């Protein structure tokens, strides 16, 4: 499988869409619309995905082994229509963690240059 041959670092930097989707799935499986809502929430409404961007990214993330399909079931908060749920794979967890560390390192540099509040 590709994920056993590919190092997480080889996939960095992630696109904003991929990173946000992985972040959204970090705390549990979700269906497409729930991912979209979570991405809006965690980005403070600055990142809004359309259906094309969402499922284009999901397609590539499935192919890359970052996420996997979980099952299909209704979401009682929405309606009784079956929805496809996605979950983070172990490889996906390592990739999103690697990206988070990369971004944290960048923020640390920004802090040292007094571009962001807090001690450097």
């Amino acid at each position, binding site marked *: 499988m590709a994920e056993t041959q590919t190092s997480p670092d080889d996939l960095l930097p992630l696109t904003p869409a991929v990173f946000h989707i992985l972040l959204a799935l970090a705390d549990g499986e979700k269906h497409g619309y729930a991912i979209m809502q979570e991405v809006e929430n965690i980005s403070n409404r600055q990142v809004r995905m359309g*259906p*094309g961007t969402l499922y*284009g990214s999901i397609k590539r993330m499935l192919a890359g082994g970052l996420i996997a399909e979980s099952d299909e079931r209704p979401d009682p908060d929405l309606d009784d229509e079956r929805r496809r749920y996605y979950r983070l794979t172990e490889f996906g967890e390592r990739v999103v963690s690697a990206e988070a560390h990369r971004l944290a390192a960048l923020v640390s540099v920004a802090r040292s240059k007094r571009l962001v509040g807090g001690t450097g």
Partner: protein
Amino acid sequence: MIAKNPTVVNLSVGLYRLLLWLYPEAYRLEYGPLMAQVFRDQCRAAYQKQGAWGVLWVWYPLMVDLAVTLAEEYRREGIRMSKDVLVRYTGPLLMLGGLSWVFASLSQLQPGSHYNFWGIYMLSFMLFIPALILCSVGLIGARGRYSVRLGRVGNFALTLAITAGIIGGAAFFIMPFLGEAGWGVFMLGIIVHFLSVAVFGLTTLRSRALPAGNWLPIVTGILPPLSFAFSLATNEGDAFGPQWPAFAMMVVVGIGWMALGYGIQSDKRQEHTAPA
């Protein structure tokens, strides 16, 4: 949770399902229903917050998302917007554009002043933009297909119609950044588009370039400017109440585009069965 979808939501989702046909087939079969499902959820949430206006504003970023991801999916499939691909999709694009025209014509039935459209009438008015873009892109394939029979004037008119239609449609999306200049580009684009289609129609009447309905382009090209001029002349700048003549003319334009697309699509099938 809304137990039954409002009409404006169902209308939006139905139109989006048609637009999903533009995606590559494999992608559309796998993800099309899921994308439509998510879009419906977006529309329902927007309707809960802001009514029909909310649903309308879901369309603006959606069209950008559609354009960007369409190009991305075709690029990844290794299919560039080649002449063959555009020729193959000429008929469906024109039919889809014509359908958008028909729905857009509903905006002319708004009661009250037409200085600003509201609610479902604004939603239908906004459909002029995808109608313009879809018909313009569909004409690219028509040019590729019939350029030999059209002659220099016909080809020039068609190229001008395509360019003006796409630029005018694109100007609408970036109008917030261009301000008044954007509105000018948009209006100029659609006027040049329609007049060029009318000139294209004159050449098809003369050259019989199309498989059927060679009179259709001149009808679809000349009626919108006539409708606009008629509205200006009779309403002195501010239409009030249902504009039945404008509605009827727009419906005719939409049906004209659909008939043209169907004729071209049929022509493609006949050529495939013709002996080598």
